[in-house]
């Protein structure tokens, strides 16, 4: 069903003799409990946060020391076995989906914070450290780690680096890339390499932007030094209602035009607020076509001045209701609904499929209207939450995974949204990564020459192309195949599939 649309890496029956050989080789250096191959042991690793796609790995390796990690990479290099790194497995694009003939490399045991330097405002951590654990460990210094993907209590910094993870505060505080100073990694040959620096820049090419967001295709990150920033003394949020979604979009532009860069600027449409309000009781205006949350942070003086300006701009932009949080519990309650949007949608629908396109903000009204039309076309509901400040949309398509036909419609609905994002000048992924999920859409977003350059970059880091193959960048052959299936010009995509 799904595999028909997206071929899973290394799909097919495991070559048992090869599996035995790989297990034997790994057990030369790893204790028995660190090498899993029986189905009951590898089953928990069959998927990541994108549960639509599942596949058993040939072998799971759980190294506990760097020496073991190096031995695994050298063994895989020698036996030409693909290696798929995995952190907490919370990724939403299938980046940690196992390779059917490969080793799934769990970095879960590399979970120590190695050093905290309060004066330099840096934390050096192993890849398996959870995102939220970093801020917890430095809270007493008045510092925190800014990127806050919604999975931050579970997701690990290794995975954040692989995906260049975002969150709700990117407009002001940047993406993972902007908050990572240096990574130490191992190449497929098991050679250590340091990318980036604690100094402001490096000699030679700046390779850090290639490594951050490379979805585990270039290096296995073994250590990262992160930038910590001072905790703002005060945070306050304005919640505004709009009776029209385009007015809400215009209000976002008006805030920016007024010279304000809010700490966060989030939008939810009516289906999203309707889903979360019974669940969270955040006090959302259920009559509004859209609500906007705009946060200011800084010193009390700065916040007071900025909140007044934000409120004035939102009123002038036609807000039908405008409420400023008057206490920390109230601020957290306003945010609770936004943060609970995904699970809340999960309560009203058996399953949901979260998309991640980014668009130029000025196209918001048009894109949301097109999504409403797609709801009718595919017979599925969709709620929209939106990192409005940076144009990153998260449509949540509701479907029923027990109904195979509903899955196909959800997937096609999602693909049509992604293609619309490209058409309006945006991208198919703002923060979740390409993984296996959006690999076909990359054929539409990038031309052949650029895709070939991506492969050349891959080979510069990983000449045998064994690190997470089949993810993130489609082969030109696959794009050619996809092109045959894909019919442009208002015609149905995947015409061979049934429609309802």
């Amino acid at each position, binding site marked *: 069903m799904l595999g028909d649309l997206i071929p899973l890496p290394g799909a097919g029956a495991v070559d048992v003799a090869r599996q035995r050989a790989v297990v034997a080789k790994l057990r030369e250096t790893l204790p028995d409990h660190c090498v899993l191959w029986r189905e009951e042991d590898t089953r928990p690793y069959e998927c990541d946060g994108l549960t639509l796609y599942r596949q058993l790995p040939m072998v799971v390796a759980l190294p506990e020391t760097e020496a073991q990690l190096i031995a695994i990479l050298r063994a895989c290099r020698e036996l030409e076995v693909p290696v798929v790194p995995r952190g907490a497995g919370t990724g939403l694009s299938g980046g940690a989906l196992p390779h059917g003939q490969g080793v799934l490399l769990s970095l879960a045991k590399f979970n120590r914070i190695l050093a905290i330097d309060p*004066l*330099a*405002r840096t934390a050096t951590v192993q890849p398996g450290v959870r995102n939220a654990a970093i801020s917890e460990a430095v809270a007493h*210094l*008045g510092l925190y780690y800014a990127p806050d993907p919604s999975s931050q209590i579970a997701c690990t910094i290794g995975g954040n680096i692989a995906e*260049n993870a975002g969150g709700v505060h990117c407009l002001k505080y*940047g993406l993972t*890339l902007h908050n990572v100073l240096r990574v130490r990694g191992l190449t497929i040959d098991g050679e250590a*390499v*340091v990318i980036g*620096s*604690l*100094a*402001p*820049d490096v*000699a*030679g*090419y*700046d*390779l850090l932007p290639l490594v951050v*967001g490379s979805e585990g295709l270039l290096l296995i990150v073994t250590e990262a030094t992160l930038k910590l920033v*001072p*905790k*703002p*003394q005060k945070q306050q949020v304005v919640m505004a209602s709009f009776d029209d979604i385009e007015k809400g979009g215009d209000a976002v*532009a008006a805030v*920016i035009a007024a*010279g304000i*860069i809010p700490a966060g600027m989030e939008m939810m449409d009516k289906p999203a607020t309707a889903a979360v309000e019974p669940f969270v009781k955040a006090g959302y205006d259920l009559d509004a076509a859209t609500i906007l949350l705009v946060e200011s942070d*800084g*010193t*009390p*003086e*700065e916040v007071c001045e*900025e909140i007044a300006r934000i409120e004035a701009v939102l009123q002038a932009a036609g807000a039908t209701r405008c409420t400023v949080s008057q206490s920390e519990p109230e601020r957290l309650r306003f945010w609770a609904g936004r943060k609970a949007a995904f699970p809340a949608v999960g309560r009203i629908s058996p399953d949901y499929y979260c998309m991640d396109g*980014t668009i*130029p903000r*000025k196209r918001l009204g048009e894109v949301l209207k097109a999504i409403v039309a797609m709801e009718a076309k595919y017979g599925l509901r969709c709620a929209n939450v939106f*990192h409005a400040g940076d*144009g*990153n949309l998260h449509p949540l398509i509701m479907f029923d995974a027990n109904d195979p036909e509903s899955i196909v419609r959800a997937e096609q609905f999602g693909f049509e949204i992604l293609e619309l994002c490209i058409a309006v*000048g*945006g*991208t198919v*992924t*703002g*923060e979740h990564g*390409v993984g296996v999920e959006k690999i076909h859409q990359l054929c539409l977003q*990038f*031309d052949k*020459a*650029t895709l070939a*350059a*991506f492969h*050349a*970059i*891959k080979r*510069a*880091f990983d000449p045998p192309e064994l690190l997470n193959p089949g993810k993130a*960048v489609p082969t030109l052959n696959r794009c050619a195949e996809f092109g045959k299936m894909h019919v442009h010009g208002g015609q149905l995509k995947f015409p061979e599939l049934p429609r309802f």
Partner: protein
Amino acid sequence: MSTQHPELDALRERVRAAAADRTPLTIRAGGSKAFYGNRCDGARLDPRGYSGIVDYAPTELVITARCGTPLADIEAAVAAERQMLPFEPPRFAAGGAQATLGGMVAAGLAGPRRVATGSLRDFVLGASLLDGRGEVLAFGGRVMKNVAGYDMARTLAGSLGTLGVLLDVSLKVLPLPPAECTLRFELDEVTAIRRLNEWGGQPLPISASAWCDGVLLLRLSGARAGLSAARTRLGGGPVGDAAASVLWADLREQRHAFFGAGDDTALWRIAVPPTTPPLNLGRTLIEWHGGQRWLVAGCDAQTVTRIRDAASAAGGHATRFRGGDAAVPAFHPLAPAVAQLNARLKQAFDPAGIFNTGRMHALA
């Protein structure tokens, strides 16, 4: 994302011909930063004909322009909307040289505000490149958040034209701060470095710092109410607005008296972790809270070794930024594993080795 432009075909033909007969090319527009990097010989390729702002939507905080666009035009366009290039790129317009967008990105340099807002690379959203095969490659995009494909657009920042000819570049811009003020402190070097890093860990609106000869200057940017609260907290003496604006511009453009190097001396740029104690290499101007240190010194073998060893020991790197002996490599040697990645990347984009070869490192 490269728009159809008559000049593009000409550039492409030129590159294809050069690749075919392996003729080295030196990409040079206004030449405002021709002093920077190692000398490289090659026929001049001037991309200034490929010029113009393609798209600028202030409320999207994104500007897209062609590489030959004068930096002054970009800065004027964003200033008219009360926005800025947040990394404060130097223009180095001495002697009528005119910096271009392409040169700015290729050099990857930033000015005083970098300490607060981030580097030039941090603000690159997308870039297209004419590679060594004459192919136009388009990386990144025009939106704020984009993780599709490797983020090569940002790696092009600071690549000094060694990977290809930059074509179109999209940059994130930010609003101009509502207000600014400058404070002056008398502090020794050790105390200044410590104090700057302590302040960096506090929620203070510091947007630039510079220390030289026992005087620390601090610029604050932000909401008016926030500035006056911060001034009270920080102390220090006031610097008049007019004098302050000249001062920060002079630092940015290296017109400050400190930068006047003699005939046989070089201006060295030493990038180190900001908390690094004084390097004791000579009279130093410190920016970026200790992260960027300038030194005027000779280029004799002993001095070069002393400077490079000090930078390495601190976990940083030293650049012969301007002047001195052209035979001394401008850039710090690379660790072998990193040098190999640099060489493979160069090979991937410029297989015939035609672009500004040698301007950065001599790669195996």
